[in-house]
C-alpha cells in the first residue's frame, strides 16, 4: 500500500512537470507560427490542465485493478513504483536517476528495457540536442546515458551475485521470464497458447512472442520522436499486454496516464465499446474461472475466450488513443476545418 501511495505521488509530480513542459512547447510553437490559424479550440489551456496531475494520481489509486493487486500483496506494486520514479526522474531531467531507476526496473522484470528509447528521446529534447544521426552531441549524450544505464544494471546484478554467491538466479529469473515454463492461467495470451503447443514448435513461438514485445520500440521511436512521453505511454501499454506473465497491476499503471490525454477525447472513435468490453471482461474473469476450476461446468476455453476479448479490448484502446493523438497533430498543423479542392467539407483517411 505504501508503494501504491509512492507511485501515485511520483506520477502526480511527474505529470505536473510534464504539463509545464507541454505548455512551454505549445507556446513556443504558437510563437513560431507552426500551428494553423483556426485551431484555437485544440490548444491546451492551463485552466483545463490544472487538475490533470490530481486526476492521474486518483486514477491510479482508485483504480479497482490497483486495489486488487494491493489486496493480493503482489510485487507488481513495487514494479509500478520503480517505473513511476523512473518517469519522474526522466521528466525532471536527471539522467543519472533515470538510468538508475530504469536499471532497477529492468532488473526486476526484463521488459522495461524498452523504455530506454523514450527516456533517451525525452532527455535529448530537454537538453535541446537535435536528433540527427550525424550530430556529435547526440551520440555523446546517448553514449553517456547508455553507459550510466548499463553500469547501474551491472552493479545491481553483481550485488545480487554477492548476496547469493552463485549465478543461479539469472536462469531462474530471466530465463523464467523468457522461456515461460509455468503455465498457470493469467490474464495474458501466453498460458493457453503454450499449454496447447506442439513441442516441436514451442521454441519458435516463444521467440516470436518475446520479439513481439520488443520490436515495436524502433518504429514507435521513429514516428513519435517529437512526443516521447506519449511514446512512453504506448510502450508501457505494449509491455503490459504482451509480457509473459501480465497482471492487472501493470494495466493499472498505463491506465493512470489516460487523463493526461483527455484532450484527445473528441477524436477517439470506439471509446464506448472498448470501455464496455474492458469492464464486462473484468467482471466475467472471476465468474468463468470459478465455473472452470470450482464448479466444473465450464472448461478452460471459456476463460481463454475472455482473455482474448480483454486483450483485444486493451489493444484497440491503445491504438485508438494513438490514432486520436496522430489526428490531433495533423489538425494542429493543417487546421481544423479542412476543405476539399471544391470547397466541400473534407474527410481524413489514413493512406
Amino acid at each position, binding site marked *: 500500500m505504501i508503494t501504491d501511495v509512492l507511485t501515485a505521488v511520483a506520477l502526480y509530480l511527474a505529470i505536473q512537470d510534464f504539463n509545464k513542459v507541454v505548455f512551454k512547447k505549445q507556446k513556443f510553437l504558437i510563437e513560431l507560427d507552426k500551428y494553423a490559424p483556426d485551431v484555437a479550440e485544440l490548444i491546451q489551456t492551463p485552466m483545463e490542465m490544472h487538475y490533470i496531475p490530481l486526476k492521474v494520481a486518483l486514477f491510479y489509486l482508485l483504480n479497482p485493478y490497483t486495489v486488487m493487486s494491493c489486496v493480493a500483496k503482489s510485487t507488481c506494486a513495487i514494479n509500478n513504483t520503480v517505473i513511476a520514479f523512473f518517469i519522474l526522474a526522466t521528466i525532471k531531467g536527471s539522467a543519472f536517476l533515470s538510468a538508475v531507476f530504469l536499471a532497477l526496473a529492468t532488473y526486476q522484470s526484463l521488459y522495461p528495457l524498452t523504455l530506454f528509447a523514450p527516456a533517451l528521446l525525452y532527455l535529448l529534447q530537454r537538453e535541446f540536442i537535435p536528433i540527427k544521426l550525424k550530430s556529435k552531441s547526440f551520440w555523446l549524450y546517448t553514449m553517456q546515458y547508455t553507459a550510466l544505464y548499463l553500469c547501474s544494471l551491472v552493479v545491481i546484478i553483481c550485488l545480487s551475485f554477492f548476496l547469493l554467491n552463485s549465478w543461479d538466479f539469472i536462469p531462474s529469473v530471466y530465463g523464467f521470464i523468457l522461456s515461460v515454463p509455468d503455465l498457470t492461467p493469467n490474464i495474458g*495470451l501466453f*498460458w493457453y497458447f503454450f499449454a*496447447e503447443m506442439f513441442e516441436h514448435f514451442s521454441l519458435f513461438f516463444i521467440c516470436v512472442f518475446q520479439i513481439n514485445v520488443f520490436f515495436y520500440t524502433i518504429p514507435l521511436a521513429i514516428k513519435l520522436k517529437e512526443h516521447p512521453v506519449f511514446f512512453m505511454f504506448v510502450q508501457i501499454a505494449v509491455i503490459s499486454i504482451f509480457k509473459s506473465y501480465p497482471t492487472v497491476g501493470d494495466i493499472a499503471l498505463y491506465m493512470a496516464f489516460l487523463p493526461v490525454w483527455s484532450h484527445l477525447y473528441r477524436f477517439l472513435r470506439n471509446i464506448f465499446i472498448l470501455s464496455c468490453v474492458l469492464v464486462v471482461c473484468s467482471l466475467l474473469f472471476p465468474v468463468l474461472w470459478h465455473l472452470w476450476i470450482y464448479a466444473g461446468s465450464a472448461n478452460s476455453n471459456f476463460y481463454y475466450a475472455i482473455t482474448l476479448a480483454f486483450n483485444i479490448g486493451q489493444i484497440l484502446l491503445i491504438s485508438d488513443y494513438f490514432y486520436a493523438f496522430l489526428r490531433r497533430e495533423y489538425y494542429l498543423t493543417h487546421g481544423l476545418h479542412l476543405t*476539399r479542392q471544391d470547397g466541400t467539407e473534407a474527410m481524413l*483517411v489514413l493512406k
Partner: protein
Amino acid sequence: MPRPCWARPWCDGGRQGLTLPAVSHYRLFPKALGRLVAALGVQELHLALTQGFWRTRTWGQPPLQAPAGAELWVWFQPTVMDVDKAWKELSNILSGIFCASLNFIDSTNTVTPTASFKPLGLANGTDHHLLRYAVLPREVVCTENLTPWKKLLPCGSKAGLAVLLKAERLFHSSYHSQAVHIRPICRDASCLAVSWELRQTLTVVFDTFSSGQGKKDWSLFKMFSRTLTDACPLASQSKVYVDISPKNKEKELLEVTPTPASVYEAIVQGDKRTYAVYDLLSPSLFNTSRSLNVQLKWKRPQDSSELPTPVLHAQRYVSGYGLQTGEISTLIYNTHPYRAFPVILLETVPWYLRLYVHTLTIITKGKENKPSYIHYQPAQDRRRPHLLEMLIQLPANSITKITIQFERALLKWTEYTPDPNHGFYVSSSVLSALVPSVIAMKDVDVEQSPLFTSLFPSSDGSSYFVRLYTEPLLVNLPTPDFSMPYNVICLTCTVVAVCYGSFYNLLTRTFHVEEPTRGGLAKRLANIIRKFRGVPPL
C-alpha cells in the same frame, strides 16, 4: 548385528569400504541379476511390484508391506562414479527383466532420502548420495510380471513350494505383492565371508469368505487349486509355517490337518505366535500320499475379526474442493498404551502439486508437535519432485495429524496421460519406526528363525522394525481442452496480428485529405435509394 568393518578380514581398514565379492556361482543365483549387480556396482537392491493396498486395520500388521505400484530402491557401492547414470541403466534393465514399465523412472519421480531406507544388508558407512528411491504408483501388476519372477527361482515353478504359484489363482486376491531383495550378508555367525543373498517374497491376501461360501476354512487345494508334491531338490530348507496362534488363550479353536510334525513358537512383530511347521524335506511327510494338502478348519464360527490393532498404523487422504488448491492430511496412530516412539515419515510429492511448506502443521492431542529432524527438498518444475522427511515423536496412545496444503499446476497438453480425468497419482508415503513390542523378544539364533522374520535387522529384543506405507492419492489437475491446439494457435495469433495491424497502419500511413471519387457501383445504388428517401447523397 553386523560386526564393524575392522573386525572382518575382507574389509581393508575402511579406506575402500566393504569389498563385496564378485558374483560368480550361478548354480542357484540367477545369472541375469548377478551380472546386473556386478556390472552396475549395486550394493543393495529392493524391487516390489504390488497390486492393491494392505488394510492394516482389518488384516493386522503386514509381514512386509510394499506401496501400490512399483517401488525400487537401490544402494550403490561407493566406487560408482555417476550414480544417476547407473540408476537410469538399472531401471531400464530391470524393466526388461521383470516386464514392468520401470523405464518410466526418471528424475521426476526419483528422490534421495536422507534418513529412511538405511541399508538392510552389510554396509560400511551410509552416504545417502548413493541411495536412490522411486515409486511408480500407476504401475499395474499382472501375470507377465509374475512369470519372470518365478523364473528367477532355482527350480522355477516345477518343484518345491513354487508349484502352488499359478497366476489364475494368485491374482484372484485382494492384495498381491511380489518383491525381490538383493543384499550382501554374512555367510555364517562368525562373519568371515560375505555372500550375496537374493530373497524373493510373495504376499497374497485371499478372500476365502467370498470364495468359500461364507466359511473361513481354507486348504491349499482350495486356494491354489493344487497341492504340494515334493521339495525342490536344490533346496536346503523347504518349510510351510501355518499360524495357529490361539486367540484369547482359548485352545482348540481351530484344527490343522495333517497333524504337524513340529510346532514353532516365536515372538514376531511384538506378538507371541505359534506356527505349525511342515518340513517338505523330511521323508515322513509324504509317507501316505504323494501330496500335501494343508487344511485349516475352524471349530466354532467366528463372529468378527479378532486381529489385534497394530501398534502403529497410518492413513492419508487429500481434501479440498476445486481444481486449484488442496490439502494432504496424514494421520498416524500410536496405539501402544504407555510407550512413545519416534517415526520417520518420508513423503514424495510430484512437482505439479506445488506444496506450501509454510502451511505444514503437525498436531498431536490438540497441541503442536515439532519434529526433531526435517529435511525438505523443494521441487523443480519438470526436473525433480518434492521430498519431505521428518522425524516425529509419537506420544503413547495418540493420533498425530500432519497437514500440508498444495496448489495444482496446469501442465502442457502433451504431459497429460491419455486418461487425464482419471487423475494423477501421488505415491504412498513411507513410515519407518522401531516399534516397542509389548512382549520382550529373546535374541534368537538367525539360523533357526524362519525366513520371514529375518529381513529386517533387529538390534535388541525390545523393539522390532516396521516399515508402513500409506494409501496412494489420486488428485485431479485442471485440464486444457485437448481438441483445440490449432484453434488456440489461430486465435492467439489473430489477437497479436490485430495489434500488429493497427500499429502498422498508424506507423506507416499518414493522414490525407480524401479526394472525391466517382464512387463504385454500390455507392451509386445507395445514392439512388437515398434520392428516393429524400436524404442527401453520400
